[in-house]
């Protein structure tokens, strides 16, 4: 299996779902070629709504479509969707609209386009909306499973996807709603908790850390977070490390910290990710290096801690 961006897996899965389920409708805001919703649009033009560069109207329209029984997928870059927070908050969240918000171009992985096109605080703002599920799959197989799950689940969902290609990690049967996936069982020293693009980086980092025999765990669902798995890892390991392509405020690291603190866990936590700063232009892999979430930088940071 060659490397593949989760947005590409999404585009294919959505088109396939369109054949099975006539209730699926798709909206995009002039980025369908980038979000890959274009495949659905070409296959089912009568169920595809090109809304132009107007994301808040797209989100509100999706809510209205949901109120007539359709299952709308509203797609754009994650930053432009999360930026229309007030519309998502009232028309989707508070309204319990069965809308699937699909944000591609998550994080530093967006690369050369730079900060304004990178979703770096999207999880932070959307996580505060009650009842909204946040999914961030890490490869082709889990993305396809996440798309199916999102369509079947009644309630708002935010699906966070990558622009950049990612290696295959999982087996067909590994995605279970709300449950983290243990990618690699480890020992008693450290666990790497990752989501989306950082799962493969963490897996590569674990190979450089064979002395510590780290766990690698994929949290494809950030809300609700799999608290049982986090606490199990906290009991097993001396330290936990979260790795995310998002600001460390309000994302995976924060979610894990909340679980640990409320359970009274004394296991120390290291949060890797964008350290409360903005992003910038560059090749994705160079940015991962600079901001400390490349395999090499993850391994170095973990070594330091032991």
């Amino acid at each position, binding site marked *: 299996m060659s490397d593949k961006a989760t947005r590409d897996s999404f585009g294919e899965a959505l088109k396939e779902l369109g054949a099975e389920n006539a209730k699926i*409708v798709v909206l995009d805001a002039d980025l369908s070629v980038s979000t890959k919703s274009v495949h659905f649009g070409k296959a089912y033009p009568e169920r595809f709504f090109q809304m132009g560069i*107007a994301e808040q*109207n797209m989100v509100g329209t999706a809510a209205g479509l949901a109120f007539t029984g359709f299952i709308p997928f509203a797609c754009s870059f994650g930053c432009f969707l999360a930026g229309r927070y007030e519309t998502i908050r*009232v*028309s989707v969240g*508070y309204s319990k609209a069965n809308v699937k918000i699909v944000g591609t171009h998550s994080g530093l992985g967006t690369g050369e386009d730079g900060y304004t096109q990178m979703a770096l605080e999207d999880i932070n703002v959307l996580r505060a909306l009650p009842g909204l599920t946040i999914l961030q799959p890490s490869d082709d197989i889990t993305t396809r499973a996440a798309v199916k799950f999102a369509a079947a689940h009644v309630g708002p969902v935010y699906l966070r996807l990558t622009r950049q290609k990612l290696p295959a990690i999982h087996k067909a049967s590994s995605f279970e709603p709300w449950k983290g996936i243990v990618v690699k069982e480890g020992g008693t020293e450290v666990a790497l908790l990752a989501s989306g693009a950082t799962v493969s980086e963490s897996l590569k980092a674990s190979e450089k850390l064979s002395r510590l025999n780290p766990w690698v765990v994929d949290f494809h669902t950030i809300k609700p977070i799999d608290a049982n798995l986090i606490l199990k890892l906290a009991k097993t390991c001396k330290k936990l490390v979260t790795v995310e392509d998002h600001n460390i405020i309000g994302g995976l690291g924060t979610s894990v910290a909340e679980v640990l603190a409320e359970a009274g866990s004394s296991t120390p936590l290291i949060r890797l990710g964008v350290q409360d700063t903005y992003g910038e232009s560059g090749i994705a892999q160079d940015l991962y290096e600079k901001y400390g979430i490349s395999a090499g930088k993850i391994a170095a940071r973990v070594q330091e801690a032991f």
Partner: protein
Amino acid sequence: MPETPSVQELSALATECRADIIRMIELAASGHPGGSLSAIDILVTLFFREIKMDPKNPQWEDRDRFILSKGHGVPALYAVLVRKGVLERDELWTLRKINSKLQGHPDRVIMPVVEASTGSLGQGLSIAQGIALGLKLQKKSARVFCLMGDGETQEGQVWETALSAPKYQLNNLIVFIDANNGQIDGHVTEVMNLEPLAEKWRAFNWAVQEIDGHDYSQILEAVAKAKRVTDRPSLIVARTVKGKGVSFMENNIGWHGVAPTKAESEKAIAEIEGGKRS
């Protein structure tokens, strides 16, 4: 109430609703009388002459939808829903109180008959558009009515929908603007002028009409015309008087979001019931 109430009967219903609006806001000790009174004649006309609904089955899937985009005008909607038999009149006096389903702004989760949760201005029209698209996809003939405030149309999201609804030729979408020229900080023309309002919507390719929003015959005629449009959505600028029906509230911005005291409420209701409303 007969199947098609006459203009006189609509007027009588509106009088009852106006009194209830004042009373419920007084008892809630908060709320928006000005914009509820300016909108009530439109609501009464739509609900008693135009909107197809089944009070015994409020979620009937072929029903016409009404979206109150100016959510702060919800006392007017609650008063009408009582007369439609989907809400008990006693419930009105729980408006804005804890554990009531009569939220200060419409909440579709706890009261599905209001169709949309609104109050964050500018969002209701997008929702109405989505419902209109959904009904067309399902090949249903039901219509979507939406009521916005004039001040509300200062929101950018409104103009995004102004662009998109004609693209999708949503002739099943009929939108009213309750143009009472009042908003919290002053007259709309001063806070952020919208005029020429009708011309703006015409330029966006809507079928536009301009009427007196307190004249039942004009409202009925405008809807009849809108229903004959085949290729675009309709926008009706309804010129209204903020606080209509209560002399000391009329055109007084101070009554946008202030509850009357008991004495003021009694005075207002006496005036309304005394037929001083023109």
